[in-house]
Each structure stands twice: as structure tokens, then as C-alpha cells.
């Protein structure tokens, strides 16, 4: 293992993963499991589970996880830096172009076509999380549904900071789900 290998592998993952989230998974697997053997397939599966349980993009989580396991904190830093460097360069360039040329009518028109699509993609992502939250071991998870409705009402009515709403749901879930399991 060399730090350069680590950097280059995650640089490629950062550069070639388009579309975000799960789209990056096969790329990460190819580099980390198949090519370099840094993780076994079982460890890689654990990594996906942990990524879903912790905040942050899966590509960033993977680079920190793999980096730490094979090269300590320095390894984690090198891998994470490699992973976000392509984004930093390309997106900064795009940002500069966007703020410079955003008033051109064709750019305006393109963005006008894209805005509804982005709303649709946000809705679609939200719906997949909701389906996950409402799935019970046998049928509908009523507690999940109740928490969702309560959180939605609180957000609509009082415009509460979403972070408090998510934290509140987490605390309630942490107390109520184990209680519910005991009663069953």
C-alpha cells in the first residue's frame, strides 16, 4: 500500500462517479475490493451499512473508512482529499462560468428546463426515504408514519428549524421503538 495508490484510486472514484449516492458504489467496489483488495466483500457490505447510518456522501464515507483502516488518520486524509479534489476543481470552474454567463438567454432557458426536474428528483428521493421509514417488519410501520406526519405538521405550521425536527424524531424513535419492541 502506498499513499499515492490510495490518493489515485479515490481521485478516480471522485472523477467518474456521476449522479451521486448509490451510483458511486460499483466504482468504489471496483477500486477498493476488486483491484486493490483493501477490503473484503463482507467488509465492503459493512461499509455500505455504516454509510447509510451515518451522515455524509457515500464516496466520502468510503474514502475515510478505507483510508483509516489501511493508513490511519493520514490515510483517511489522503483518500478523502483525493475523492473530493475532482469536485473542487470542476465545480469551481462551473461555478465561475455560471455566475459569469448566467444571464445568457440559452443558459437561462436551460436552467428553466432543469428546475422542475430538480424538484422532481428531490421529491423522488424523499419518497424513497419515506417508503423506507414506513416499512415495518410485517406491514406498515405505524410509529414511523406517525412521526412523519407529526414532523411534517410541525414544519408546515411553525417553520421549525429542520435540524431540530430531525433530532426530535431521532430521540422519539430511540425511546419509542425499543419500547414498542418490548410490548410486542
Amino acid at each position, binding site marked *: 500500500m502506498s499513499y499515492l495508490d490510495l490518493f489515485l484510486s479515490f481521485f478516480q472514484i*471522485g472523477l467518474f462517479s456521476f449522479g451521486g449516492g448509490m451510483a458511486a458504489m460499483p466504482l468504489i467496489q471496483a477500486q477498493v475490493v476488486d483491484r486493490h483488495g483493501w477490503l473484503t466483500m463482507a467488509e465492503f457490505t459493512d461499509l455500505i451499512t455504516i454509510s447509510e447510518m451515518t*451522515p455524509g456522501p*457515500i464516496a466520502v*464515507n468510503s474514502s475515510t473508512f478505507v483510508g483509516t483502516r489501511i493508513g490511519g488518520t493520514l490515510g483517511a486524509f489522503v483518500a478523502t482529499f483525493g475523492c473530493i479534489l475532482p469536485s473542487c476543481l470542476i465545480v469551481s470552474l462551473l461555478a465561475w462560468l455560471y455566475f459569469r454567463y448566467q444571464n445568457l438567454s440559452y443558459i437561462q432557458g436551460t436552467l*428553466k428546463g432543469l428546475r422542475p426536474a430538480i424538484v422532481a428528483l428531490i421529491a423522488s*428521493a*424523499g419518497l424513497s426515504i419515506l417508503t423506507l421509514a414506513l416499512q415495518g417488519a410485517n406491514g406498515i410501520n405505524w410509529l414511523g408514519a406517525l412521526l412523519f406526519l407529526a414532523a411534517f405538521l410541525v414544519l408546515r405550521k411553525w417553520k421549525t428549524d429542520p435540524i431540530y425536527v430531525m433530532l426530535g424524531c431521532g430521540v422519539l424513535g430511540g425511546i419509542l421503538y425499543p419500547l414498542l419492541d418490548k410490548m410486542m
Partner: protein
Amino acid sequence: MRKKYWTLFLSTLTISTFTFGGGYVIISLLKKKFADELGWIEEKEMLNLAAIAQSSPGAVAVNASILVGYKVAGLAGALISILGTILPPFVIISVISLCYTAFRDNVIVAAVLRGMQSGVAAVIADVTVNLCGTVYKETRALGILVMLAAFSASWFFSVNVLWIILACALFGVGRTWVLHRKGEMA
């Protein structure tokens, strides 16, 4: 200016700490913070930045924070928001990687996360309702139609996000061209 940098750093840091479930969650939270609460970015512009973040390589969350930072305070802002976005997952994963099986199998952790799923879904639902209103105000029925088409493509037919983005971009270009032609004829 220093206060602005600090707010930018703290905002991206807290948002990133609570971003479970991928790029669109962070976009919803960024919109709430920077458009609704701070008023630093217009709602429409937030969607433009989201579109650019989605069509660039790399993690959508990282790309979106770079764009938001750049918009708020230029290149320095972009660097600050990258740092704010990367730090929480970096620290959390570094710690967890030392004892990850205990974390993965912990009952309370699983229950808290399960509760948070409902909260995340509610936040996204709330943002979606507001954004549907924005789209309708801007482009009326046509915008809603594009939105429904993009949603069906993504949800029912699992079409790759990049194709959806490309199709809608082409639609936007085509529409501009038609409008220009009409303008020239009149």
C-alpha cells in the same frame, strides 16, 4: 466579512452533520438555511445550483456546498463550505471505523436512526411542497408537466438521473430556440 465566513462554516457544518440519506437531503437543508432563513440565495438560484451539482462528477452534497459557498463568498467561501461539509463525516467515520461492528449492531442506534428517517422524509416533503409552488408560479402548467414527467421517469421507471437532467436541459434549450424564432418573426 469574517462573520459571514463563520456563519457559512457553522451552517454547512451543522447541515452536513445531519445529512442522512444522500444529496437531495442536503439540498433541501441548504435551501431552508440559505434561501429561507438567511436570504443569501434566491430560491430559483438554489435550484440552478442543485442542477449544476447534480450534473458534475462527485458527491452531490460536496458539489452543492461548493456552489453555495462560492455564491456567498467566492473562492474562499467555497473552501470554507467544503471544510464544513467534509469535517463531520470525516470525524464520525474515523471514530466509527475503530469499533464499527459494535455500532452497526447497536439496538438504540438503530432505533434513533429509524426515527430520524421519518424526520428526514418530512423535511423533504415540506421542501417539495414549497418548491412545487415556485415551479408553478414560474412556468405554470408546463413546469408542472415537466416535473411530473421527470418524477415518473425517476420513480416508476428508475431512469438514470443523468438522462433526466440531459433531457430537461435539451427541452430548455429547445424552448429558448423556439421563443427566439417567434421573437424574430414578430
